[in-house]
């Protein structure tokens, strides 16, 4: 058998293949004279095409809501933080605050970014660090109390402000958990939709 001729009709023609081509060629496709009767308009399959769009919209909405909750808590923390600062911090004090922030969460913000933000708005440095408090929040609250004492030059009523801070930290934790849960649910839904679309496309129309 001439492999090349069978593959791409090159080389010496194989007599048996040639004979089959002549015989079977009588069944070859002939394009019909009439054009294909296409429908008036291409109907969109609303269900199939809308699923990813709806899922994406739902995911976006969830993210916006979760982000709004988180921002709201952040702002309430920042207003809490600002109220205890009664005098402008000196550069030395700013550096101390930066040290506190970098100790709590060194992997999130490099010192250069913290310094940049401090130069833009000094009062917000501590407030911005509060939402990032994780397992070491006790250390932060302890240190920040100390820092604030240096800033203001007087002792605050420690019990009520400490309780308030703890409450805020708890609320922050809750909001964080809710945000993570919302993101997790959204991601699951998107994966499910993606799998459904993939499966239906592989099956093709019946």
């Amino acid at each position: 058998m001439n492999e090349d001729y069978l593959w791409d009709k090159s080389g010496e023609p194989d007599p048996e293949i040639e004979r089959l081509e002549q015989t079977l060629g009588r069944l070859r496709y002939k394009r019909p004279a009439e054009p294909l009767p296409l429908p008036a308009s291409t109907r969109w399959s609303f269900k199939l095409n809308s699923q990813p769009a709806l899922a994406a919209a739902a995911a976006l909405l969830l993210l916006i809501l979760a982000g709004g909750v988180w921002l709201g808590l952040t702002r309430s923390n920042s207003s809490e933080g600002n109220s205890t600062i009664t005098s402008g911090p000196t550069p030395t004090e700013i550096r101390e605050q930066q040290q506190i922030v970098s100790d709590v969460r060194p992997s999130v913000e490099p010192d250069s970014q913290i310094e940049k933000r401090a130069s833009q708005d000094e009062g917000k440095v501590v407030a911005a660090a509060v939402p990032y408090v994780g397992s070491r929040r006790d250390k932060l609250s302890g240190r920040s109390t100390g820092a604030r004492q240096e800033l203001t030059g007087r002792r605050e009523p420690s019990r009520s402000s400490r309780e308030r801070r703890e409450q805020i930290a708890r609320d922050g934790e809750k909001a964080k958990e809710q945000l993570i849960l919302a993101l997790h649910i959204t991601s699951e839904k998107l994966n499910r939709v993606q799998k459904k679309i993939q499966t239906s496309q592989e099956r093709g129309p019946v």
Partner: protein
Amino acid sequence: MSETGTATNLLFIAGARGASTAAQPAMETSPDARLVEDVRRGDRESFGRLYDLYGPMVHGILLARVPWGEVDDLVQDVFLVAFKRIHTLREAGAFGGWLAMIARNRAVDFHRRRRETEELPENLAQRSSVDPEAAEALALIRTLPEAYRETLVLRLVEGMTGPEIAERTGLTPASVRVNLHRGMKLLREKLGMEKQP
């Protein structure tokens, strides 16, 4: 879809280049893919062009599976379905493989519906309007495994070369080559057996 149809489609998927793993660079779009994009934008003439280009492939795939007398109607059905669902095709470059799958599914659907209704015996419909020698050769090819059957019909009936079959159907050239070689070997054996007294 029957289990055989599902298994066949899986075999073809396994041998297919597939849209997501195509070796084509991202920037390069084939002429056929551009036609598909034009159709998506509402250009019906481009779909007519695709009909011309892929008609032989669809005809061959169906001829390997359904009675000869039914093929022309089913070719039209396949293209109508493709036109309606072209927006669901993710990769324009995978149009050929996608269309081939529609054709195979349509053939499976045809047989499923036939089982549910009364039909005329196949031979009568066939022999009244087709060359007997060609019908006999086609009947022999139809006894071969589906992957070989389809490739041989595209080669021997539709006159497509191996590279053309690979390009149109989305199969890899290596798969097509193997199917052609093994299919032809089996066909020769059957032809040899037919000739024996």
